[in-house]
């Protein structure tokens, strides 16, 4: 990972574990997690429910304390600070707006608690309401506004005290698809405008890919991979990461030669291709390789093909078409091709077809 230890700005999570003691069985929600979140970064914790992403968020907020390890903010440990002394604010999953206060009072709450002068509070609240486009509804009760509006008030409330870090716990999950798309763009805009570090928790891979500067994929209390959305998508290091994000083909292969993060591998069909190696992966022997369906194409020219198989099924998706190819070893390989205008679709089910892999399409997995 990029953090060498020289930079102290941002959040450093060091060897953090969290064990919940539930009557009989202890649940290990986080297992020796280490990650660095840079300043001014839109960082996403992505994973299925129960993977520990919300626990990590609550540890940063201070609602829970780690069983082991430590969390540092700008180089200073947070452990002894209660939530109300951390320059960190949260946008809760259900927004948790105060029902006994108006929109404006909700946004002003944090500033009031910080003891800011009245004039300043008024100005900041106005600025925040303008930022989230809620100026007209400032005097409304929070249960008299729509879900999307509540969402924006929750954002304004958390941003008003200008925290160093904003934590967002699946804030879009309660919204409908259209609103969710709008809010994704809005959130990204807010992050850029304010320059505040966003730590965003979601189980939605698309959300993670579209908004984040970097993504950490989590499973069973561990962070499996951290990287830019492109790195995560195109060069997944582990089977779980490849599986969780997008569609994937798996191929069994053997490393022939390796070096500088690249390897020459031999597929079971006998073809030799270049592939990217994951950080800290093995350099010899049998490995699994992933290829994204859109990084492959079909051909009838056997000479050009990397390997071939029998075309078993064609599924039309509008913008593109999926071709399911049964390979010689019995596995299924999916090819996704964009539907070009005037492209004649010939029904060649059960025909023998060749598969061409794009350059740099193959990624070797660590596990």
């Amino acid at each position, binding site marked *: 990972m990029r953090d060498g230890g020289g930079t102290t700005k941002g959040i450093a999570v060091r060897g953090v574990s969290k064990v919940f003691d539930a009557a009989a069985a202890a649940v290990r929600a986080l297992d020796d997690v280490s990650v660095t979140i840079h300043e001014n970064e839109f960082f996403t914790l992505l994973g299925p429910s129960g993977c520990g992403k919300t626990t990590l968020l609550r540890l940063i*907020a*201070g*609602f829970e304390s780690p069983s082991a390890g430590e969390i540092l903010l700008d180089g200073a440990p947070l452990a002894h600070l*209660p*939530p*109300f*002394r951390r320059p*960190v*604010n*949260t946008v*809760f999953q*259900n927004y*948790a*707006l*105060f*029902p*006994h*206060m108006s929109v404006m009072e909700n946004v002003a*709450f*944090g500033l009031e*608690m*910080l003891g800011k002068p009245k004039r300043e509070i008024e100005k900041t609240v106005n600025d925040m309401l303008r930022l989230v486009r809620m100026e007209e509804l400032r005097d*409304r*009760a929070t*249960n*008299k506004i729509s879900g999307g509006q509540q969402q924006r008030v929750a954002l304004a*409330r*958390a941003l008003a*005290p200008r925290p160093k870090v904003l934590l967002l716990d699946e804030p879009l999950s309660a919204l409908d698809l259209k609103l969710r798309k709008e809010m994704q763009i809005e959130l990204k805009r807010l992050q850029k405008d304010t320059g505040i570090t966003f730590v965003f928790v979601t189980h939605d891979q698309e959300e993670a890919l579209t908004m984040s500067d970097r993504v950490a994929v989590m499973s069973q209390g561990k962070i499996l991979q951290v990287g830019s959305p492109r790195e995560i998508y195109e060069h997944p290091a582990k089977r779980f990461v490849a599986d969780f994000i997008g569609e994937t083909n798996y191929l069994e292969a053997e490393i022939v030669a390796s070096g500088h993060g690249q390897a020459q591998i031999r597929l079971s069909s006998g073809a030799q291709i270049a592939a990217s190696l994951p950080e800290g992966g093995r350099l010899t022997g049998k490995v699994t390789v992933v290829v994204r369906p859109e990084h492959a194409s079909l051909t009838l020219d056997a000479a050009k093909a990397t390997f071939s198989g029998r075309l078993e099924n064609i599924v039309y998706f509008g913008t593109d078409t999926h071709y399911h190819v049964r390979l010689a070893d019995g596995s299924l390989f999916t090819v996704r091709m964009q539907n070009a205008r005037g492209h004649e679709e010939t029904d060649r089910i059960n025909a023998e077809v060749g598969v061409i892999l794009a350059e740099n399409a193959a990624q070797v997995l660590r596990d």
Partner: protein
Amino acid sequence: MAALDLEPDPDRRPLTIASTAERGAIRRRWFLTAPALLVLILAASGPLLIVLAYSFLKAGAYGGVVWEFSGEAWFKVVFQRDIFDGTMSYADAHLSILWRSIKLSFLTTILAVALGFPTAYFIATRPPRTRNLWMFLITIPFWTNLLIRTFAIMEVIRNEGIVNTVLMSLGIIDEPIQMMYTNFAIALGMVYVYLPLMVLPIYASMEKLDFRLVEAGYDLYATRIRVFTRVIIPLVKPGIVAGFILVFIPALGAYVTPRILGGGKNMMLGNLIELQFGQGRNWPLGAALSITLLAIVMIALIVYVRGTRRAAGDHG
């Protein structure tokens, strides 16, 4: 209405039928609720009207009333006439009893909030399975007769009671502390008796409290005290107000507790009213005092309704 416009029949019969049916339904509803309404009118308003009427009549020599209009009873609630020279002065005895009733009821209510709120908070923050057990324990005193519970208190605080015996045997005091027949005894007894009525409504609203809002408060730089005063208290206010009413009103009219623990001299309004209908043989005065009590209760209720309406207005 749009559907009716499509109706081909020009004389709009469906509308007539519909409204006749509706009128029938309304009549039927009245008919069905009539027994309940009748019972309410006869059993609640009836006696009240009788009491009101009695307060404007003359007292019979041996109790009862003489059917003759008189403002004497109402006059006597507030004033007294000297037997010898007939000069008027305030009825100190009545006014002090009235004042003691309000004072002790208020004190009882405040103490009940002070004890009941932490209790309700404690129960509401237990895991759901143990919460019911705690609530069950709170209701146990209700299983025993009020009289017996009051005598039990007496056993604890009387001069030869548990407290004094223990304190004296430990050598902390030389002679027993006089606790019986004091305002303290009445307040203690009433707090004990009415405490569950405070815990229950506060617990009910506390249980509904979304503790994520408490977390949101902490997150937004509110200290524990600030979270308590700015988030928890406003959100459970309806429960506190309900508990306030549930304790204050019966405390104001309390009869058994002040009678036993207050003895004869520390009377409350309930005892004074009983006295007028009994030994005092002044039914009109008793009736006028009853209406006075009712008026105080109604004022308290109006304050309550105003308070909750404002709270509801805040919530939107």
